[in-house]
């Protein structure tokens, strides 16, 4: 078992009342899991992901990573952001080297950075600033940065939703290729998305949350052959099934 989410609840307190966002979430993450968390908007998917990574503290409950309580400093967990979160004043390569340096993987900075720049297909763009890249290319840098720290667990917060349909489809396929490559990190992925088709296309496990306060409604294993075919009727049976569980 890689990680365990145990009795996690989250409430936000405003001046007048308490808002419960997540209610007693439990599941565990195993090796080779590609988990998608889906649910209606406002159900606390992103909050859950932030708690798993250690960016936010749950109101009650705990998240264990390899038996220890998670902290955001953990170098074995990396994150990919919806709006890329690249440092605009650093070049592509510097953006990646920065996190390598901070995660204490200082040796062979340049070599590691270049390896992952190449892996996401951005060779030749090492010295370019993020503002000069298209959205899809920026997210490639986001992936390269997260992979470069060679994480065991990769967490992604709607990584494709600020890209156009065509770009995101290409990027999904490339990401799946990297995922299939045994030499590449990570060992497990958790991805938050509101796109059911995307979840069925990519993951081998889907966790469905209820409307607020989010509870685990279902935890499905997707038993479809890879590479998956969107036109396959079987594919659509899975999509319909997930949809029916969300509402």
């Amino acid at each position, binding site marked *: 078992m890689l990680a365990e989410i145990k009795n996690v609840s989250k409430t936000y307190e405003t001046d007048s009342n308490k808002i419960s966002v997540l209610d007693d979430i439990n599941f565990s993450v195993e090796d080779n899991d590609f988990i998608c968390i889906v649910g209606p908007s406002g159900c606390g998917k992103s909050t859950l992901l*932030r708690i798993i*990574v*250690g*960016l936010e503290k749950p109101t009650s409950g705990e998240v264990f990573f390899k038996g220890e309580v998670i902290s*955001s*400093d953990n*170098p074995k*967990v*990396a*994150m990919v*952001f*919806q*709006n*890329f*979160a*690249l*440092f*605009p*004043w*650093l070049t592509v390569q510097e953006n990646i080297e*920065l*996190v390598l*340096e*901070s*995660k204490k993987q200082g040796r062979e900075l340049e070599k590691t950075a270049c390896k992952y720049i190449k892996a996401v297909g951005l060779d030749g763009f090492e010295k370019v*600033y*993020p*503002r*000069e890249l298209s959205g899809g290319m*920026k997210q490639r840098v986001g992936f390269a*940065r997260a992979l470069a*720290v060679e994480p065991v667990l990769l967490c992604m917060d709607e990584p494709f939703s600020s890209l156009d349909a065509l770009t995101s489809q290409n990027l999904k396929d490339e990401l799946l290729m990297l995922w299939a490559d045994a030499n590449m990190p990570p060992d497990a992925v958790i991805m938050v998305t509101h796109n059911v088709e995307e979840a069925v296309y990519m993951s081998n496990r889907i966790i469905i949350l209820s409307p607020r306060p989010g509870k685990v409604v279902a935890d499905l294993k997707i038993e479809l052959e890879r590479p998956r075919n969107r036109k396959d009727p079987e594919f659509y049976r899975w999509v319909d099934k997930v949809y029916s569980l969300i509402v």
Partner: protein
Amino acid sequence: MKKGHFILLIILFLISVTSAIYFFDIIDFPGLELLPYYAASSFLRMGVAYFFSLCFALVFGYTAATNIRARKFMLPFLDILQSVPILGFFPAAVLFFIGLIPGRPGIEVAAVFLIFTSMAWNMAFGVYESLTTIPKELVEAADSFGLHGWQRLESLTLPACVPKLVYNSIVSWSVGWFFLVASEIISAGSETYKLPGIGSFLIDTTYSGKIALMLVGLSILVIIILLLELFIWKPMQSWADKYSYEYAGEKKPGEFIFNTKIIKFSFRIIFESFSKVMVALYIVFHWHKLIKKVSKFLGYLVLISALAYIVYIFLTSVAKMLLNLPEDAHSIPLAIAYSFMRLSVAYVICIIWTIPAAVYIARNKKASSYLMPVMEVAASIPAIALFPAMVVIFIRYGSLDIATIILILLGMQWYLLFNLIAGVKSIPKEVENVAASFGIKGRLYWKRILLPSMFPSFVTGSITAWGGGWNTLIVAEYIVFKGQEFHLFGIGYLLDKATFESPDSSMVILSVLSMAVTIIFLNRLIWQPLYRKALAKYKFD
């Protein structure tokens, strides 16, 4: 013609006129050969004050942004400091520093201090705003990739401050020139202290009626300001663009007549070494828990003792005043009313001309390429420096009232104009397209689209314009020319009279305080609610 060319042309013209007078000895004036030395000393004073402002801004802004408890009293404190007319406190500051350090060094410190007080607050706000508006995801990325301590400082905190800090530095320098002119001749009590510099040269020559010489000094001042604009601020702005978050990154049109790569490269080197120094300091302070605690303790000690000192001075002087109320005290409310009326008249004139001018300039590319440099040059001349010359004209041909109002206008109008131009330019293209495609024109267009979208920048511009106006007031209601004194009744006059004519420290404090209270009252009552409304209702984002 590019804007840079135009500015360069103006510089060349000024240089040739000035050097003609200078080298051909058209005017015989002892000490004219010292002008370069005067200019250099003035520039040095500005530089030193700027350096301290920068350090203050970083420390203050960083603390206010990261320490929620400290923020609660730091921000209102800064707000008050910013809205108080600094010029009024100046005599007191001079006496304090001269008491501390006798002789010229004391006066130098006092002058630098005055310039510092005009530069520091807006830069500190800039740092605070930069740090509190870093995009949330970027902060989370820094957290999740374990960027802490000095690494975070170097890779996130300092770079995030760059764009606003550069922009506010430019504003600070132009305000600083105004205060430089005011700070080089200081009368405190019965003494008059003078420092060699371009500001004292300007005032000296005017007061002794040597207008041609005054013009030479003025053009040297303008030349320095323009050279800075061309070789420091413009390249610095384009360098700072690298640090802004706008990923979509439209390239701004090049305004340059020369390649600024070398200048930009040197900015980078300076910035990187500066941030290395900050990082080193950070590491030293966080090296051991004890050092951190001791430095924190010392910081609080300094802060609290400074506050205690200010409160002490304040209370004792208030007590003194109450025991022995100056005889002029009863006329303060009326004086404030008079001054307020003058400011209002100037403000109304400002509004009347700047709104159409801003729309025209922002909309008309060709006109703006000629008008903007001229406006910027005009705006860069500290209003104080022009006052003596205007008095000469108006004493002969008109009334002092008109001169005063014109001077206040000069101290107010540019803030409003430049803010409004930026406001018109920031109206999104889509909104314009909607207006065009639905045929919204004429009055309806002004009423429903143009004026509402200018409203936020109108409010920001007005706040700074009034701030500038109050400061100008202090020098605009009282003047000595050729040994003769002219004045208009108002709070500025009362203040100057208590400073220069019949020294009365409690009257100085009383008039500055009542002025400050008026300003804070106006800010709270009018500008802040308007600003909130502007942000809530009329802001595009």
